[in-house]
């Protein structure tokens, strides 16, 4: 048996080079897979770092795995299993333990020479990490990473197939531990790159790229076309992993916590609004209401939780406090990033809230709050129908209780007016109130304005608060000083002052403002937009009024809205362009559901139908125009014009036929693109012409040069243009073969 091929013009990778390429691709695949760990937020940094370092080292020096002692291979399997069991037992988290096990296996596969099945294992291990990271983070990076991984994996499988084909079944024998395969002894990455450049044909490379583009396109089509069923269940991998929210957005905060969040400029929230007319210029994204103040800590009291948070429910929709109104509903779609909070940002009281995936949650309609049971480990998408954008939170039940207080005097703390301070501290706060109001007793709204102005006069805004040292309540000490402070101190001081003046007041934390992305047309709220403000109860309206000591002072009702508000927050920077990709990912991919699928298919159908109609109409118009032109009266001028055009067209055709092939040949000669080498073809042509001439001794040299161009090695060529010029001169001067001349 045997096999041979004709001499190939392009070199071919040897078996050793294919093995080396396979090794490098496997290492790259591992590194791509490890990249997913960085946004998976699993505690495996050391292991990941070690694995990445080992992978890079063995990729550059493929001889290294041979130095791994034999006992490592013997003990590898029991050690890895033991590590996994101990990990699960110690930390009690299954999914992170599996991820760490996966990384460990990747590490082992990169410090041992891989057989075919090991390469497959490498692909599966890498894919597992990427999928888990993608599902848990819902990050747009997943798409990029998956594509890169797929390209690497396909290339690896291709090389494995080619190597197997070249080696035959005999070469699949396992390698003895500690032995170095022949290819690893001679492996040199620079040499491999050089060989790859020599071997690759640009046309094959272009075709490969086009085919991979086709794979992406087919994937997109399949994604659109795969039938969807809304099974209404969720929590696939999320239940196996726990995630901590960033401090500042839990139901208990200390001074300074919100400031820490302000250092983080990553995106916390993206919001789509169906009707831009309702967009406020300065939106407040409320999350948590903190009513209890004690020992320098604001927290949501258990009493408020019990009374306002409705029992937990599971599902995708819930009603709010706002009643349905006439007219077209306004939909606000929120994409809350993971790790922000389990309390969902809302603009105010709402009519209904619906989730993209089923959730366990509790709603507090009168507080305009929604709390999920767990911190979401993945991006959470929800849609809210119709917000109350007045900036007030009506609370009729509290109003009734408040009125009842004046009559029956129920406990003060129940009404969010408790102020557990010492007498001296009370005196400090009372003095501040007196200075702010000038001794008058205004309504709640007016009091908030006056107190806010007083606070701004007394204190400058700073992210580095200056709280005087001393005994007692830190907030009171700051209030009494003229030190600078952040939003939390301002809001907390206003609460103290309002309660001292007898107004129920509380702190609300969330975000303020945000930018309007001019590319994807949505609000982008970053963690640096975190804010705390005050709500003060207005007995007259029976609602909680928003009072932000650091705000503009204008009421929500007086704010500009719509396009003017958008213009004031417009962001068209490069960062916004990048953020728009994330929004595209969330809108078109992550939130793609049965309804979106039906809409997409309908859109495709409409486009096809309308484009078909448009083409038909254009054709009909062209035909009608031609008919009209032909039917118009013919005169000499018109006839001559048409004849001229026909003559010109004929001349162009003749010129093309006469000189076109020559031009094409020259062009091909210059570009060097055809099946056959154009220089060799041209040399063949001149040899043919020379063959028709009478042989002469002076032709020998140019004939030899032409023969070298036609059949010789490229290195032996003279300059082709010069040879062809000489050949042309020779043919012109030569006598045709067989012609008899007369003397």
């Amino acid at each position, binding site marked *: *048996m*045997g*096999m*041979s*091929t*004709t001499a*190939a*013009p*392009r070199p*071919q990778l040897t078996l050793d080079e294919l093995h080396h390429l396979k090794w490098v691709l496997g290492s790259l695949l591992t590194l791509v897979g490890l990249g997913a760990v960085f946004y998976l937020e699993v505690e495996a940094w050391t292991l990941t770092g070690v694995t990445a370092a080992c992978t890079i080292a063995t990729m550059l020096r493929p001889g290294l795995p041979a130095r791994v002692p034999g006992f490592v291979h013997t003990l590898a399997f029991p050690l890895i299993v033991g590590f996994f069991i101990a990990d699960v037992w110690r930390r009690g988290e299954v999914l992170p333990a599996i991820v760490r096990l996966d990384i460990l296996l990747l590490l082992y596969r990169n410090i041992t020479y891989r057989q075919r099945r090991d390469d*497959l294992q490498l692909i*599966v291990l890498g894919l597992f990490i990427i*999928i888990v990271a*993608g*599902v848990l983070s*819902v990050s747009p990076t*997943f798409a990029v990473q*998956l594509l890169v991984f*797929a390209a690497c994996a*396909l290339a690896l*499988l*291709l090389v*494995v*197939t*080619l190597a*197997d*084909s*070249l080696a*035959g079944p005999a070469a699949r024998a396992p390698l003895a531990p500690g032995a170095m395969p022949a290819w690893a002894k001679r492996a040199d990455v620079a040499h491999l790159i050089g060989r790859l450049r020599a071997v690759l*044909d640009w*046309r*094959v490379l272009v*075709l490969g790229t086009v*085919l*991979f583009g*086709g*794979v*992406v396109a*087919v*994937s*997109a089509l*399949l*994604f659109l076309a*795969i039938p*969807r*069923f809304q*099974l*209404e*269940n*969720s*929590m*696939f*991998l999320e239940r196996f992993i726990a995630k901590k929210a960033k401090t500042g957005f839990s139901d208990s905060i200390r001074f300074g916590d919100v400031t820490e969040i302000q250092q983080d400029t990553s995106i916390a929230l993206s919001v789509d609004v169906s009707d831009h007319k309702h967009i406020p210029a300065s939106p407040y994204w409320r999350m948590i209401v903190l009513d209890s103040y004690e020992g320098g800590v604001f927290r949501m009291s258990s009493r408020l939780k019990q009374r306002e948070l409705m029992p937990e429910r599971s599902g995708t929709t819930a009603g709010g406090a706002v009643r349905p109104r006439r007219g077209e509903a306004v939909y606000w779609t929120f994409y809350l990033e993971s790790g922000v909070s389990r309390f969902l940002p809302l603009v105010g009281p709402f009519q209904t809230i619906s989730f993209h*995936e089923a959730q366990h949650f509790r709603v507090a309609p009168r507080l305009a709050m929604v709390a999920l049971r767990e911190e979401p480990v993945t991006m959470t998408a929800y849609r809210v129908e119709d917000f109350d954008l007045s900036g007030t939170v009506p609370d009729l039940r509290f109003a009734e209780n408040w009125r009842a207080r004046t009559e029956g005097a129920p406990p003060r703390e129940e009404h969010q007016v408790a102020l557990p301070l010492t007498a001296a501290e009370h005196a400090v706060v009372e003095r501040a109130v007196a200075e702010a109001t000038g001794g008058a007793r205004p309504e709640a709204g007016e009091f908030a304005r006056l107190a806010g102005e007083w606070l701004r006069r007394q204190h400058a805004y700073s992210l580095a608060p200056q709280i005087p040292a001393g005994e007692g309540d830190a907030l009171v000490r700051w209030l009494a000083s003229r030190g600078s402070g952040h939003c939390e101190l301002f809001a907390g001081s206003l609460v103290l002052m309002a309660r001292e003046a007898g107004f129920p007041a509380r702190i609300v934390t969330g975000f303020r403002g945000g930018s309007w992305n001019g590319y994807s047309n949505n609000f982008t709220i970053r963690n640096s937009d975190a804010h705390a403000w005050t709500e003060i109860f207005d007995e007259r309206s029976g609602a909680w009024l928003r009072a932000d000591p650091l705000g503009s002072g204008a009421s929500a009702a007086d704010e500009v809205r719509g396009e003017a508000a958008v213009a004031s927050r417009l962001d068209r920077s490069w960062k916004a362009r990048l953020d728009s990709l994330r929004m595209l990912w969330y809108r078109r*991919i*992550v*939130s*793609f*559901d049965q309804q979106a699928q039906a809409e997409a298919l309908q859109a495709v159908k409409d486009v096809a139908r309308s484009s078909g109609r448009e083409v038909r109409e254009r054709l009909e118009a062209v035909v009608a125009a031609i008919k009209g032109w032909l039917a118009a009266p013919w005169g000499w001028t018109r006839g001559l014009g048409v004849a001229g055009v026909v003559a010109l067209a004929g001349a162009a055709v003749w010129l093309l036929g006469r000189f076109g092939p020559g031009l094409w040949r020259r062009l091909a000669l210059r570009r060097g693109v055809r*099946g056959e080498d154009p220089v060799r073809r041209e040399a063949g042509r001149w040899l043919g012409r020379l063959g028709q001439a009478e042989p002469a001794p002076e032709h020998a040299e140019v004939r030899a040069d032409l023969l070298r161009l036609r059949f010789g090695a490229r290195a032996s060529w003279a300059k082709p243009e010069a040879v062809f010029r000489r050949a042309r001169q020779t043919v012109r001067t030569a006598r045709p073969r067989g012609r008899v001349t007369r003397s």
Partner: protein
Amino acid sequence: MSSHEAEWEGPRGRARRRFTWSGLLWSFIYPQRGNRIVPTVPGVILIGLAFGIGTAAYNSSSNILFITLSLLLACLILSGVLSWLNLRGVQWRLVLAPPLRVGQVTTVVLELRNQKRFLPTYGLWFEFSARVMDDAGAAAGSTISASAAEMKRIFAKAAADGQGERIALAQRLDPKGEGRVEWTFRPARRGRVRVELVAVGSLFPFGFLRKGLGTATRADALVWPAPVEYRRQAVATPRRRAGGERVSRLGSSGDLLALRGYAQGDSHRLIHWKASAKTGKLLVRQFAADSAQSHALWLRTDAAMWGEGERFERLIGFAGTMAEDLFRTGRLMRVSINGEPPLPVRRPRDLEIWLNRLAVALPAREALEPEERPPSMAGLITFAPDGASGVIAIMSGEVTAWA
């Protein structure tokens, strides 16, 4: 026996059928017989992964998983497209070089060419098989009409008998390039053998699917009997004359025996120019040969005498070997089998005809009639059983050789 050279064939057979979309769709539902697509271990893993991810995607409504599922399915489609591109434009031709003889190494050459403009072809393998056909001819175990399972069985049996093998094309087949694959085998039985390219297969590009295409490429040939070792004994012939006997048999003595038409390979010195000029076509001279003793072989294959087993095969081999030896020494005049007319042996081609006849000789069920027997003549060699399984050659009533 002439060289068997098949036409160029490709994945779609000799005749290029016109492409139709309905034909393509139909081929998915009812593939061409002999075509096999079997998932490999990576393929099973991919399908398992796709199934698992699909189940998880539907259970969790996670679009991330739907994207992964879509990508896996797209990769499977890409694999099919690349596999199709790889096989497209590849053509092959089977070249079988005679003579074939039982027990002797035979080389089968498969010439390949890649008709694609710029895409090379990788990783093909070729499954060869050689099968001796029975009297029914091609109908017996044809791989063209066989189903995939039957083909697999046929090939497995052939491989087990050493009459089938899978040869891989290790090198790249460049665009517009040519290559060749050689397969060697030892025919185990005499008779009419069919060498077939059972299938062309590939794991290209990603090794997910083992794709095999049944082909109609085949070549038939006759396998001559194996040479038999025998002992000879000089035969005393009373009529033998010193100086030899001039016989009417081709040879190289100076006596002109006849004229015949020129054949390629004949020496130009043998051309009879005068006769050629008269007749208008090239004629060459044939000379009589000098021979001390010329022989004729007469082979009887009565089943009652020889049975159907080892002794019969020994008889056939003996007759073939003796004929070759006698021809080589220029002492073979005629050969005949049973009641068939005697065949004069003048040229190597006549000997080949005799060996071809022996290749397909079967035990005769009926005894010969007396008029079918050749007349008794000097130098006539016949065969008879000897002992349990031996065969003897008899001339003029005396044993002249044992096998």
